[in-house]
């Protein structure tokens, strides 16, 4: 077995971010994480996301639908034995928001929400543990 020493030098060079990206690529086995499906217009697009399911599909759909510039957002898993999830986004044509912008905002909102959940959960747990003593 090789040792973690080589890995450490890699990490020391501040390549932690890249490390995680490399890891992702390995786990995907050469597939693209995100593909734009044919038929894209200025305010609408369908995306194919590799190795995702209802977990990300449904929650991402929720966050994207929370955007007032979004006319429609829905997701589907076209075939149960393929690990692909399709997500369709249409934005109102009288707004400057594109489907890409809406997807980006949805993901950013989800990241924000996760941070809030972590914070509130940790506080509640620590408060509960303190009250037990």
């Amino acid at each position, binding site marked *: *077995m*090789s*040792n*973690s020493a080589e*890995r450490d030098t890699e990490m020391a060079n501040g390549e932690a971010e890249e490390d995680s*990206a490399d*890891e*992702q690529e*390995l*786990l995907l*086995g*050469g597939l*693209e*994480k*995100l593909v*734009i499906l044919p038929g894209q217009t200025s305010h609408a697009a369908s995306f194919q*996301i590799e190795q*995702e*399911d*209802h*977990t*990300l599909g*449904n*929650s*991402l*759909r*929720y*966050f994207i*639908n*929370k*955007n*007032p510039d*979004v006319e429609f957002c829905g997701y589907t898993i076209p075939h149960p034995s393929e690990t692909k999830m399709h997500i369709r986004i249409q934005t109102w044509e009288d707004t400057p928001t594109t489907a*890409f912008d809406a*997807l*980006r905002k949805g*993901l*950013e*909102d*989800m*990241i*924000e*929400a*996760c*941070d*809030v*959940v*972590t914070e*509130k*959960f*940790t*506080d*509640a*747990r620590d*408060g*509960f*543990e303190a009250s037990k003593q």
Partner: protein
Amino acid sequence: MAPAQLSQAELDRRKTVGINPETVTNITSTDFPGHHPGEDAAWSIDRFSKGLEVKFHKNSYDEATFSLIGIDASVANAFRRILIAEVPTLAIETCYFNNNTSVIADEVLAHRLGLIPLKGSLRGLDYLKWYVRPDPENGIEGMDPSDYNTVVLNLYVKCEWKPNPPENGEPEEKYNHSNVYARDIKWEPMGRQKEEFEDLEIQPVNPDILIAKLRPGQEIDIVMHANLGKGGDHAKFSPVGTATYRLLPKIEILKPILNQDALEFQKCFPAGVIDVEYVDAKAVTENERLRPHEGEQYAKVKDPMKDTVSRECLRHDKFKGKVKLGRVQDHFIFQVESTGQFPSDRLFLESVKVLKYKAQTLLRALDNIDS
């Protein structure tokens, strides 16, 4: 248009799932822009932060129960799904059989070994990374096993006669090592693992799991490699026994239920849900309808969380129109039961981390396409 001032009653009505004798109503969330005209339902982190509440009911290593209030079902469900299928967990993945003369076939034994939950220092488990097995036929390059992605375990047991065995004794009295237990699995530290796992060595969560039975002369000698994996790939990698949620039940008593009826009403619910008390001055101030019945007994909702929503009370004509059952749409009572590798509360935090990581990965992929 300025958002209309909404009454608390209207807000409560919107987020109550109606549970009727034969139907359920008002199930889907409506908090999307454009659904209620003139209201601002756009995502706002401040509003989310203000509305979100976490309440703990139980927190032990093996089991945590808590309420997540003010979150959408899609997000709560994402956490639940991640807990079951996507939080990385360490389990035995590969077995190398040096010798197996027991009556259990190699593949059966390997399967049993995989299912044994392991534990070890949390710092050490954090240090571990994914291992991707090389698969040249399918074009997967993979990686070499190393101290940061593979844990080596050994199982060597040989059954022998005890000196001077009793003639008609139990196998345990006659032979040494007639039973192979999970405690016989020994960890072999590699590279930096010794220091990373110094707080708690890698070992089975439960030492008393019976793996195999042997008779004199039989021997098991296996080298095992444990890797990180996901519950989605194999149930042995699932860090939880159960991870479920249910919505908080809601019982509304619309008209007073009194005396004998109150006692019967109480019996329609599990113990502790409904209280039967005497109507006093305090009760009258809380509910004006009780004024004519001072001194009588009345039914009162004590702890709806204990209810199972059996709908038994809806079967009796005498309670018709007097009670309304429901569930609170955004109040999720989570129950997380760990298999022992991580504390239950920590598992939930891990699930939030996984969802965030998924979003970050996709965001990075989007950046690569956009630029």
